């Protein structure tokens, strides 16, 4: 029997209200610890496979190509480039996100961008002042044009 949308009084059908509380304490992992320690120092780190000579973001402890163990983490040296932009409005405020990739690095990250950033622009991260950083993604305020 379908519960028709027109039945406005749902108590006419026996029902149960319940909630399942879900609380989590996640670990960022071996590579994640390195990544966020890097962020606290104002660096974006990639992991680098010795065998493939390729680097990855976000960093992993394994190579995405050859599945070797990775122990080398390198600072992303090249410029970031905006691949795509999305925009939403919160009241009168514009909130803009971009998918940013880095020269010579496989993968990318998603983060907020400054108002004037467009697809194809070269960008760099703006970090919070050192004493305000907590070791998570919000330590980067946004990406601005270089």
């Amino acid at each position: 029997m379908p519960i028709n949308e027109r039945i406005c009084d749902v108590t006419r059908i026996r029902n149960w209200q319940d909630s399942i509380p879900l609380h989590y304490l996640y670990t960022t992992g071996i590579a994640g610890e390195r990544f966020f320690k890097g962020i606290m120092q104002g660096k974006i780190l990639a992991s680098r496979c010795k065998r493939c000579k390729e680097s990855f973001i976000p960093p992993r402890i394994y190579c995405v190509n050859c599945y070797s163990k990775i122990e080398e983490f390198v600072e992303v040296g090249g410029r970031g480039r905006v691949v795509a932009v999305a925009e939403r409005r919160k009241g009168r405020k514009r909130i803009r996100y971009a998918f940013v990739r880095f020269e010579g690095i496989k993968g990318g990250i998603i983060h907020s961008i400054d108002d004037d950033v467009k697809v194809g622009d070269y960008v760099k991260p703006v970090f919070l002042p050192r004493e305000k950083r907590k070791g998570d993604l919000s330590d980067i305020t946004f990406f601005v044009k270089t």
Partner: protein
Amino acid sequence: MRKVAVIGAGMTLFRRRMMETGRELSFEATRMALDSAGMEMKEVEGVVMGSAPDAFDGVHMKGEYLLEGAGGINRPYTRVFVGGATGVFVPISAWWHVASGLFDTCLAVAEEKMSPFLPHPQYAFWTIFDHTLERPLGVNLLWIFSLEMRRYMEVHGIREEDIALVSVKNKGNALDHPCSQVAARITVDDVMKSEPICLPVKRLDVSPTSDGAAAVILASEDVAKKYTDEPVWIDGVGWNVDTQYWTNRDLYYPEYLEKAARMAYKMARIENPRKQLDFAEVYDPFDYKELHHLEGLLLAEKGKAAEMTKEGITQRDGDFPVNPSGGLLGVGNPIAAAGMMKVCEVFWQLRGEAGKRQVKKEVKRGLAQAWGDLLQIGTVITMRR
């Protein structure tokens, strides 16, 4: 169907809380399995992943989330799930991928990261119960297992002290396992005096919650022989699922497990399992479950598994060693990974690579089993040299 061999195995430490993410745990176990097989990921054709309820890791698309760590990128990749029985179901699933002729090699990985769930992983089981009949009572799994343990004791006149011997044995065996989480030399008295959780279940009757992963690599006969002179063959697989209304069953005996075991034995041409098998890794999240399962697997007569334990038959140097690894009670219980750990142990025992855990007698055939969903499924795998 083609013959299928296990050619490599690996696992991580089992711990209450690991720094590694689920992906990283999956990688560590898989990398070890590949290395032990002398294989590279590019030689793996298919990947089967297993992990228990998403509620633990707290990523509600866990198969996809773990894929990369388990080496599943751009491959035929599947996640299978049958609750606690998943760990043994993963190699069963990988087995049919190879036995069918679809692949020559298949990787089987099982992972569980239970520690993220707060305040305790046990509460994640709230998400699996019937919302109308069970959850309003505030039940957790320990309640239900308590009912089952009591029923089993009642029917056969078994005492808590007899059951405690299993915990003593397994925690002791785990002292020799380099990955173990709760290995200990304890006495029956320690078990009896341990904190009551939901009587008759006490703290030392139960396995812990854990983070960990384990993996095995399967290959067809021709391919296996290229990698190793000592393949371990999977010669029987079986599984059977009963209704989730566990109240349909008389809890004293797991009929679904007997059916699963008979399926595996028929395939492996085993008529007398107690004689034809040399040892078993039996699912032991609780000490009474080892006894319960030995009976369901037809390795002990109904109600006689406790006696078998008391006589020392199931000790590592006994006539029929059970859980020489140390089991879930000693090594730990990262749900899916725990079942897979048993398959790894059978592999290591049959290859004579179990080190200090190596059983005393010569072993040619072994069995691994897991149990899960809501007291409703048995998964069984038999292996031979």
